[in-house]
Every structure is written in structure tokens, then in C-alpha cells.
């Protein structure tokens, strides 16, 4: 029997320290709040080359949340799942419209899609077969919006430049109600998430009207004045609040409180074109504590996220084009923004992708075969590895093994006092921080200049290339400027004899001249500012 003795604790005298770059300063205010991290976590993909402005984007309410985008006289359906694979081609495109498609809406089960165009026609398609099922024609002027109610499969709401809001029965292709009251083009509308009978429309006459189909005389129930032509209007998920966009402001109104304005958000510089509601996960696990936000996009190319609980802009993001439409998938995994120049910025957030696709597989291929667990025997190779991947239980006493210090190649070389090799190895790695750290260590060993004098022509080229690239960086310049001068002084002969090195020196000269120019202009600016500051400081 072997006697088990506790290993006596021994310690090492001194640790090995790696050559580490200097620490970077931490900003005093955190640049990334959890929320902005959330919004930047949408991995953006561009869908280019759509002919013109993306007038409308709509998500299917049912998983996997296909989205449709209307542009020019066609509409395309995209799958968000393929987006994450980098596939930006649409699953299908319908281009049998006679005029520009203005608005799209999915039915609540995601099986039907309604599309309106500027010829005044509304068409309903079957999403699966792409066949046009119904044509609704009554508008005399271009239709600007079409909307399926949130709780109702049978009806459809539309509005257009004839200032009339129409309520349709889709199955019979018949008009149920004509709602008159707007004095200008009706541009937008939304259906209440809590009632099948209530909806709102916004018009260029600056007003937003609340309608109820149960009201006898087809008059609006409530009216609020936005003060600017209304571009978009939405119900907030509670059903009691609405948000309207017009001009460069987004306003929030309390309908239950009689159409009182709650807040006016005016941070866009140009017209706000589209708003939608998004949810943000508070806990990192996601899902449990979601808060609602209003996403607004404008012609100024900004997307702003507005927290209407705290009345605060929590995130702002710039896109390189005027933005026309925004939509977020109901599961908040996909965010799609359409621009005026035919590019869709589709962003998808990483999440429990596998779970969904796993479920899809189960449906697709039937049950997968569970691998049978075999009893381990000493004849198996795995028998000898059993228990090695066992995780410690709660109360187990852990015998910690000292962590092995992982040495980079330059660390190993420095340990062996092969200073030049260490410098060359780290120069080859293209990490400027490490290069500077190694150089500083060499200075501490008083070996840097010796290394420089020992470099051969090729390695010298490497060093000059590095200096050319980074000597003017403010973080490194204090060391690298001095070093550059020394290198040129020490190796003037070698540089003169090699054309490649001369080229590097030319580049170096150019970047130094550029830097001097920058410094000059900065000094000019400083000269302008400093008297101002002095005056301001005296007050």
C-alpha cells in the first residue's frame, strides 16, 4: 500500500514577469454603457444595390421573422437567418407592381402580406406561394400606408393622398368604412395592440387622429396636433401611449389622458422619417427584464434610441446615408434600416441561434439518434481517461496547480539574452504595443542601440518600416522619435548602400513632414484658443 502524504507546500522565490506593454488610460466616463453595447451588438450587414429609396420595411410576426422591404416598384423578402451567414440575396422578389411600392404589412400569423403602391392599388400576397390573392382598389390617389390590425385577421387599414382612411374586408375585397376627416395627405397609421377596433393615422395636416370603427358617424375619436407634417406614428406596446414623428421631433402622447403630450424629443437635425419600438435586455441573460425603447431614424443619417421611461436618449448611431425606414423584429434579434439610396443596413444580434435551428432540425429530419452510452472497460482507451474532465463539486477541496506562465517568443529570447533576435521576432509580429514594450525592456538592459547596430539589412528594413508607421503616434513618439534619429545616425552607411532602405527612409521623411504639418496647424489652433480660454478663465 502506498502511503499518501500531503505534499508540503513549497513556494518559488521570484516570479517570472512577462514583457508587457504600458497600460492604456481608462476613460473617466465609460464610453460604452450596457445599453449602447447592446445596440452595437447588432452585427451589421449591408444589402446593397436595391434600386432606390427603401420606403417600407415590415417584419413577419411569426418566427423565423422574415422581413419584407419595399423599394421602387418591387418588394423583396429576406430571411434574417441567412443574414447571419452573410447571405444578402433575397429569398424572393415580387416586381409585378405598376408603380412604386409605398407600404407593406404582414398579417398577424405571417402568412399574408399586403402591399400598397402609388397607383392606388393594394394587393395581398400569399407569403409561401408568392401568388397575389386579392386586389383592393378604391383609393383615387397614391396609397401611402397599409396596415393589418394587430389582433384581427380579416380587415386591413389603408390611407393615401386622397386624405381618406379606408377600412377593408380582405376576404370579400370590399370596403367596410371610409373615414373622412384629414385635410391633407394621410401618410401613416398604426393599429392598437390592445383593441381590434382602434387605430391611429397621421397626416400632413399636422394632426394625428384616433379612430374607432365602432363609432357610428365615422368621425375621429381624438385628435392631436403634432405641429409638423406627420411622417410616422406608432402605438407603444401598452396601447395607451402613441409616438408621432414629424419634422425633426418625436412626440409622445398619452391617449388615455385625453391626448396630452408627454414629451417631445428633438435631437434629430433633419426630418424624422420612421420610428419603431424595440426592446432592450437589461440583464445580460436577456429575455427576463426587457425595457421598451423607441428607435427613430431621420434624414440626417442618425438612428437614435429613446428611453421613454426616463425620457432620455440612450444611444445614437450614425449611418452614411439619409435613413428612410426602420424596423425591429418581434424577437428583437434583427434590426433593419433602409436608406434613401437603396442600401439596407440589416443587423443581427447573436443569440440562441442553435436552439432555434435545433428545433428546426428536429422538425425537418425527425428524431435524432441518441448515442448509446457504453460501459467503460479496461480494454477501451477511454477507460484510462475517465474522470479527467470531471468538474469539481461545490464542497470539494481543490488542489491548485500553479499556473504556467505562457511566454511569448520574444520573452523566451529575452530570457536567453538574445536581444536582437527578440527585437526581430517582435517586429515580425506586427503588434506595435509589444514592439515598444520590448524596446523599453532593451533600454532598461542598455542593449537597444547595440541591437540596432547588429541588425542586418533586411531586419533594418523591418525596423524602419515599423518606425515609419508608428514613430509619429503620440503614445510611442517619445521613445520612437529618439530611436529613429539614432537609427539613422548609426546606420547611415547601410541605408545609403541599399535602395530598399532608401525607400523606407523616403516614406519616413514623408510621414514626419506630415506630422510637422499637423503640429503646425494644431499650434495655430492653440494660438486661437488660448486667449479665449484665458478670457473665459478670468470670469
Amino acid at each position, binding site marked *: 500500500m502506498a502511503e499518501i502524504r500531503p505534499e508540503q507546500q513549497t513556494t518559488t522565490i521570484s516570479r517570472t*514577469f512577462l514583457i508587457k506593454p504600458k*497600460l492604456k488610460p*481608462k476613460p*473617466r466616463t465609460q464610453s460604452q454603457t450596457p445599453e449602447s453595447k447592446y445596440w452595437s451588438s447588432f452585427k451589421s450587414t449591408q444589402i446593397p444595390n436595391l434600386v432606390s429609396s427603401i420606403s417600407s420595411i415590415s417584419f413577419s410576426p411569426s418566427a423565423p421573422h422574415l422581413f419584407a422591404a419595399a423599394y421602387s416598384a418591387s418588394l423583396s423578402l429576406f430571411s434574417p437567418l441567412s443574414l447571419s451567414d452573410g447571405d444578402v440575396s433575397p429569398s424572393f422578389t415580387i416586381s409585378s407592381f405598376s408603380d412604386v411600392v409605398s407600404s407593406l404589412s404582414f398579417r398577424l400569423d405571417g402568412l399574408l402580406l399586403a402591399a400598397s403602391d402609388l397607383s392606388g392599388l393594394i394587393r395581398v400576397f400569399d407569403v409561401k406561394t408568392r401568388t397575389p390573392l386579392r386586389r383592393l382598389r378604391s383609393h383615387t390617389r397614391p396609397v401611402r400606408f397599409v396596415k393589418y390590425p394587430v389582433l384581427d385577421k380579416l380587415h386591413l387599414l389603408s390611407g393615401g393622398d386622397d386624405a381618406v382612411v379606408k377600412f377593408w374586408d380582405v376576404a370579400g375585397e370590399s370596403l367596410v368604412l371610409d373615414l373622412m376627416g384629414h385635410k391633407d395627405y394621410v401618410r401613416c397609421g398604426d393599429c392598437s395592440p390592445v383593441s381590434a377596433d382602434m387605430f391611429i393615422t397621421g397626416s400632413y395636416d399636422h394632426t394625428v387622429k384616433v379612430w374607432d370603427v365602432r363609432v357610428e358617424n365615422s368621425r375621429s375619436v381624438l385628435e392631436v396636433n403634432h405641429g409638423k407634417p406627420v411622417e410616422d406614428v406608432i402605438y407603444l406596446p401598452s396601447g395607451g401611449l402613441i409616438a408621432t414623428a414629424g419634422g425633426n421631433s418625436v412626440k409622445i402622447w398619452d391617449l388615455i389622458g385625453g391626448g396630452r403630450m408627454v414629451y417631445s424629443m428633438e435631437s434629430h437635425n433633419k426630418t424624422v422619417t420612421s420610428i419603431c419600438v424595440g426592446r432592450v435586455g437589461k440583464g445580460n441573460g436577456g429575455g427576463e427584464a426587457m425595457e421598451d425603447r423607441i428607435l427613430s431614424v431621420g434624414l440626417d443619417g442618425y438612428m437614435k434610441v429613446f428611453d421613454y421611461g426616463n425620457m432620455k436618449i440612450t444611444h445614437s448611431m450614425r449611418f452614411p446615408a439619409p435613413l428612410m425606414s426602420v424596423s425591429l423584429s418581434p424577437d428583437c434579434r434583427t434590426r433593419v434600416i433602409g436608406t434613401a439610396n437603396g442600401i439596407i443596413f440589416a443587423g443581427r444580434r447573436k443569440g440562441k441561434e442553435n436552439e432555434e435551428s435545433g428545433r428546426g432540425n428536429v422538425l425537418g429530419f425527425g428524431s435524432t439518434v441518441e448515442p448509446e452510452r457504453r460501459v467503460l472497460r479496461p480494454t477501451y482507451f477511454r477507460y484510462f481517461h475517465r474522470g479527467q474532465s470531471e468538474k469539481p463539486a461545490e464542497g470539494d477541496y481543490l488542489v491548485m496547480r500553479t499556473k504556467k506562465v505562457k511566454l511569448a517568443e520574444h520573452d523566451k529570447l529575452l530570457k536567453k539574452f538574445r536581444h536582437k533576435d527578440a527585437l526581430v521576432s517582435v517586429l515580425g509580429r506586427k503588434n506595435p504595443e509589444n514592439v515598444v514594450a520590448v524596446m*523599453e525592456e532593451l*533600454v532598461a538592459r542598455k*542593449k537597444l*542601440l547595440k541591437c540596432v547596430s547588429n541588425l542586418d539589412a533586411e531586419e533594418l528594413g523591418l525596423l524602419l518600416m515599423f518606425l515609419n508607421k508608428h514613430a509619429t503616434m503620440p503614445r510611442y513618439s517619445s521613445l520612437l522619435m*529618439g530611436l529613429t534619429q539614432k537609427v539613422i545616425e548609426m546606420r547611415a552607411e547601410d541605408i545609403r548602400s541599399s535602395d530598399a532602405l532608401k525607400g523606407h527612409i523616403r516614406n519616413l521623411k514623408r510621414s514626419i513632414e506630415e506630422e510637422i504639418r499637423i503640429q503646425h496647424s494644431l499650434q495655430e489652433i492653440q494660438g486661437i484658443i488660448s486667449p479665449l480660454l*484665458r478670457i473665459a478663465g478670468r470670469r
Partner: protein
Amino acid sequence: MMRGGRSFVSSPPAFSNDAKKLLVCAANTVSIFSSATGLQITSLEGHTALVTSVIVVPASNPAAKVLCYCWTTSLDGTIRYWDFSVPELIKTIDIRMPIFSMVIPSFLDVPVEDNEKHRDLFAYLSTEDTKETQEKPKVLRRQIRKCNLSKSRLVGRIILGETKKPEVLTVSPSGKFFGIRNKFKLHIWKVPDLGSEHAAVRKITLHHTKKITAIAFHPTQRIVAAGDVTGRILTWRGFGNRTFAAGKGVANEKLIDVQEDNPGVRDNDDADSCSTWHWHPAEVNVLSFSSDGAYLYSGGKEGVLVVWQLDTGKKKFLPRIGSPLLYFIDSPDPTLSSISCADNQIHLLKMPSMGILKTISGIKAPCSYPEMYNGLGNGIAFDQTAGLVAVRTENYCIQFYSLFDDRGISKVQVRERNHQPGDDVTVVVTAVALSLDGSLMSTAEVKLAEEGIGGLVCLKFWASGSQNKEFSLSTIVYEPHRDAGISAVTFHPSGHMVVSSSFGGDFKVWICNSESIQNDQMHRNSSWTCHAVGSYKKKPMTAAAFSADGSVLAVAVETLITLWNPYKNVLLSVLGETLTPVVTLSFIGKSDNLVAASRGSKPQLSLWSMSKLSLSWSYKLCVEAVASAVDLSSFAVLALLPEPSNETTFEGRDGVILLFNAIDPVPTAIWSVRKAKGGALGLLQVNPSSAEEISIDGKTPEVLLVYMNGDHEYVLFDPYSKDAYEVSVSHKEGLAALEPKGQAGQFGYASIYGELPEFDMKRNGTPWVPSFPYERPWETIFAGSSHNLPPLTKLCRTFLESLLEKRTE
């Protein structure tokens, strides 16, 4: 009076017979440590000079292993015999010559026949002949002598050898030979078999071309190994075959000699062969054979213990010990041995694996720094509440050493860099500051530039956990004052403000923003940010101090002292002017007095009154350190004596500690000390809660003065105690670092300064010298940083008024 901080590595230590104790020579005493815990058990006190060797009487049979007797030698010329379990002095032999080393070969030579006759115990000593200075050439005064320990006397006039320098005797584990190294030579004596006094001792000499630095004998065979300054290890096999063979026919041997081929043996040395190993890049300090003779341990300046397999020459290493090795000692327990390092650490090794079991940590020795950084204080900070001292060490650490327990507590790696002993010093920790409660630390370090590129100044802030003294890094500031060096770092009394002054002409006030993160279990996250920058006429700032309540910040601008409001960063006043730049500033407790010390050609110690904004008094004293405590009205000053001091009066003492009482220019007490250069002073306040633990000379003082000399040995005493004098008298003969000259102020003062004309009281005739900026306001109108300049209209008026005033004069 408490002493501590002694060097544990002045001489080789020794293990007791059961390997449970380690006897370490520490200055005048032998400290006995437990090898299991690494803590001190007791000490043998009695020698009055440095103890140079300790030899444990080995156990002849297993039953005798519990016996604890040892012999010690000292520079005071005595050999003492102790029972170190009690501990008790048994016997003293006075030979009246300083002893540098002693070996007792007969301990190791196991007596084969334990016959009826009790044999005398002989020891061989390395001594210095102090008497015959006239007769002999001075160079050969160190002698190897034989001593009969049983009869307590030296044996006749036998002088085995004479050397220029005191040499350490090395005895072979078999007890048959002992040897010394002497420059390029190795002298080996054979111990006579008989226990008679006058038996002839035979000697051979082995030669080498380099200076030999270490020597070791093989336990069983006739092999001797020697290391030299270049790092080579030479092994002579079969040394002394001819000389020690007790052969009579000299002619025969000569014949053999002709035939024999002795590879590697130089000249006509008496050895069979000589082989060389070379791994060490620098001199070999440690050589030792393992007890079975299969391995040879070697170590040297580079701090790596090398294990050579004797037959094959294969090597194994224990790398990165971090400090030059001095001694390697085997214990009777084969699994335990110890190495002593030059940084005053003794590591106990678990043997076959060479893991470190325990470390006996003495205070680290001061390290050499480049000349330009020597003047910047001495890198010693005292933690007043916990009784700790923080000293900087060579491997970029700060060591925390408990003054009361006399042992190392912890260390903080200030710069994460692999230290190589013997490298050029290129990275220097220049300043250490501790907050009053000892929970925060700030360090400044400098990386020297290589031919003008790559220099870096770094200011670091550290915070310790609530319980332990483990400091963790909180903030790093690279180049806090551009490329200028930091002259001083000082904590605000509240601990949440630090001021760093630089030679670049500005000082910065740093404040601590602490925010606690809840989800991380009370993890305090503090960061330091620059709060304000101040400068005065772009002159170098040389020292800084906060007043006791923290409302005034004094910054020395070369010869002037500027007073600032640290919160608003407003220049309050300027005091002037000393003769040479001020290097140390300190407020005296709660009183409104500021003491400033300057060095250089015209050193000065001056006291400034804050209420009158003028000089109270000054002395021409070269001040090394100033100590003041928050709640005290008195302060202590360590002053260096001028070079041509009177030898008879000062007995090699080169400094004095003066205790002043605030404004009174007459010191209340004076002590003279040794090795004051590079020393430090601290006033520790004993808080009542821990008062029971700290009692010195039987009673509890409320304040303790710490004096730490240039070698980091320290002494703690009550500066107000009346019997400090008597206590130290008993230590008068010894290597006492300190001895009071008298504490009745006027007497001691007169006794010293009567002899020293340089110490003329330079007290000014007028009691208060008004500082001149008040007479000439135009000199200070434009002083201070630009952002707190008064508006131009105001300036103009003052300026014109001042001119008008002048004209009326």
C-alpha cells in the same frame, strides 16, 4: 530599547542535530530559528562584537541528538560554549584576538576507539594578531592558529599560516583536512591523528591562475573543489597523496612523480588530477558537496543554485533566487538544507526537489543607486500605526518589515521586471510614501534612458486590503511631470490626496476617486486623478509637506518655500530664503512650525513659524533625516557630523540625533550614532490599544523613536525616557549603533558643540526675521500659476502702488 534589522548573512548559519533549529549569526547575537515555521525562537546573547562562526556539537549517537551545545566565536576575541536549548552560556575562552573563523575537525572525525583517556578538543582559528604591529609587516597579521578548547588556551606559538586578509577556514566533512583559500592558492592542512598538542601539521598548496573564492571538501574521497572569480569550478582529485601519505622515502616518491601524468594539475602540486567546470558567469560564492558525495552544489553572484553530478558533470538548476548566494548549508536531515542570500534572506530548501519551504526574512540591505538618485531621501517610509517600515530593495520591491517583531511581513513588487543580480542599475524606485493609516502607498520609479532615449518616470498608487497588508496596484501614471523626475511624494493626512513635486518645475495634487462595485463583494475600486497643477516661476520643486490638519501644503522651490491651499490650489504665501535648495520639509505636529533641511555646500536646518511667516532659528547642520509625528510638538533630526570629527570623542560615530521641542532651538536630547549616512529616523506613536504588547525596558512609552542606520539595522527607544542612558551603557562596549551622550539638553548640547566650532549657533540677533516678499510686493504679484492671477486692473494698481511706496522711501 529594542534592536533589530540585523544581518543574518554575515556568517554561515548552522543546523541543530535534529535539524529543527537553525542557528544564525546576527550581529552580536546568535538567533535561533525554527526550521518548521521560520520564526525566531530565542537568541544567544553575550558576545560584544560580531559573531563570526557557530559550530553545533554533533551527536555521536542517535540518543544524543537532543543535546544542544554549540561553540561560537566572535570578533571580540572570545570563544563561547552554549547550551542553546535553555539558552545558557557554559564556558568562555578569551584569546584576546579577533576571530574570523573557527573549525573543530575532531567533531567530524568519528572516534573509532573511545578509549579511557579523555581527549582534548582542538580547534583551528583564523585570527588577527593585534599586538605585534611593530615587529611584523602589517600585511601578514592574519594567522591560522590552533587552540585547545578543553584547556581553554591557544596551543603554544603554533602559527599554521599567515595571510593578508581574514580567511574563512573550511573543514572536510571527514574531519581529516581543513583548508583556506589565499588569493591564487589553496592551502590544505591535514589534521594530526593524535590528540596531542604539538603534533606536526602538514600542509600542501594547490595553485590556480585566478583568484579563488570558494572551497569545499568531498565527504569521503580526497577531492577538493574550488571556485574562482571567473566562475570556474576546479576539482582536484587525490590531493596530498604524496605529502600526507606518511611515506618516508622521499626519493621513491620522486621517482613515481616522474612517471605519473597528472592531467590539469599546475606546477608541481600534489594532486592526481584537476578538472574544470564552467557555467557560472561571475564568481562562485557557494561550493558544497552533498553528504553522499555524489553531487556538488555551487552558486554565485547570478543567484542560481547549480547541482552538478560529480561523475558525469550533468547540471540541474534552481534558478531565479534573485540575489547573490552566500552560503549553502546541509542539515543532518537529508531532506532539508538552507541557502543564505545577500539580500538578507535565508531560504530553507526541501532537498531533492529544491522547493522552498520557508524563508527567514531579514530586512533587506540598502542597494546601491546611481549617484544622481542618492540625494533623494533614502526610500524609507514608516507606517506609524502598525509599526512597520517600508524599505526599497534591489529587485524593484518594497519590503514591509515589522519593527516590533523584527521580521519581514510582506513585499510589494513595484515594477514587474525580472531582476538579474549584478546587472547595471537602470530602474530605480526613487520614492516611497505611506498614508498615515498605512493603507495607501505611493511609489515613484525611474527608468534611466539609454543614450537619451527611452527614459520613463512612473508614479504608482497602491491600496491595501482591509485585513492584510497586501498592496494592490490602483493607478499608474506614466510621466506624471513629463520627463522630469519626481523629487518628493507626500500623502495628505486624510489619505485621499497626494502631492508629487518634480524637478521640472511643477507639482501635482492627486486625489482618489473611490467607487465601490457592489456585485464584486465589496471590492473597492479606487483611481487617482490629477486634481491641480501648480508651479512657481518654473523653478524646480524639491520637497513637499502637508500640515497636520491638511489645510496647508508647503512646497519647497529650491531655496524658497511656497505655501498653498491644496483644495483650491491657491498660493498663500512665499517664505524665503535658505542658502541651498531645501531637500526635506516637515510640519511639526499640530504646532504651526515648519522644519526645512537643505544640503549641499552650505547645509542648513531651519525652523519657520507659520503664524509669523518668518524664520525662527537655523543651524548649519547637514541633515540626513527629519522625523515628526502628527500629535507631537517635538521633532527629531539625524545630522551627519562633519568629516574631521574628533576620533576619541566620537569613536567612529558619524552622526547625531537631535531631539528638538518645536520652537526651542536648544535640543532636549542628543544621541550620537554610527553609520548615519543613508540612515533614517521615524517617530512611532504607540496607540493605547496595542500598548500592552509593546513594552520597552519594562514600561510602555507613548512615543518611540526609530533610528535606522545606513545598513538598515535599527533601534527603537523612548526618546523621553530617563533611563535610556543606563540601558545603553551596558551595550557601550559593543557594536552598539547608538549611545546617548546625555539627555539633559543643555549639558549634552554644550558637550558636543563646545568642541565643534562649525556648530556655532547661527541664531539671528533679531528674534523674528520678516520674510522679504512683504517689503517688495512686485516680486510676488506675478508669482504663481497663471490661472489664479488677479485681473490686470488689480495687478496694475498694486504694482503702481508698490512703485509709489518705493519712491516715498
